């Protein structure tokens, strides 16, 4: 069964330091991978996605993520954290269409979420 794991419930970083939020996945075949961010009392906002090609994906707000097929990981990174980056981050995976019945659509499997706290 496909799954996504975010091994850290919380990550604490000082402002200006680099940050990493970890994600590992398990799916059949090559996955499509996503990162979303959720600010308090808000819906999820899309940050970036990996489909194919370059293993380093750049997204919104200075975030990037590195796809590592051998380690089945898709860690979210930012070179210099901001206090405003404090939020809940979700990794998600979706199977490629080739492995799915058409009407099943692009369902996402989400990780548990990681609370990022950036202190001044």
């Amino acid at each position, binding site marked *: 069964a496909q799954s996504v794991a975010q091994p850290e419930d919380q990550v604490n970083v000082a402002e200006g330091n680099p940050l990493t939020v970890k994600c590992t996945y398990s799916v059949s075949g090559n996955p*499509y991978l*996503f990162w*979303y961010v959720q600010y308090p*009392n*808000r*819906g*999820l*906002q*899309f940050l970036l*996605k990996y*489909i194919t090609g370059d293993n380093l994906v750049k997204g919104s707000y200075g975030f990037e993520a590195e796809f590592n097929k051998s380690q089945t990981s898709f860690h979210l990174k930012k070179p210099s954290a901001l206090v405003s980056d404090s939020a809940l981050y*979700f990794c998600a995976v*979706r199977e*490629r*269409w*080739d492995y799915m019945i*058409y*009407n*099943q*659509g*692009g*369902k*996402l499997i*989400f*990780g*548990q*979420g990681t609370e990022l706290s950036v202190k001044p």
Partner: protein
Amino acid sequence: DAGITQSPRYKITETGRQVTLMCHQTWSHSYMFWYRQDLGHGLRLIYYSAAADITDKGEVPDGYVVSRSKTENFPLTLESATRSQTSVYFCASSESRDRSSADTQYFGPGTRLTVL
């Protein structure tokens, strides 16, 4: 550009009552989804729809009913609410143009439902 909206944003109801949560999107996306968010469980898919009049169960469909008579609307009904259905509910939509695409899901602001 309204995007995707949900109503109500907050709802308190009692056990056994019927509750309908509304979701409306202005993008004419084909796919729509309902998730619930609970501490320790992340987001779990309740139901989804590939197009008008096409719906299917997700991971946790029990106790919920959906319909999709129009592309832009995807209401979620709790026929007889239970306390275990206290949660935050998110609607999302996406447009999948072909089998090789990986279209992003866009989320509404959520509905916080409390069942007493």
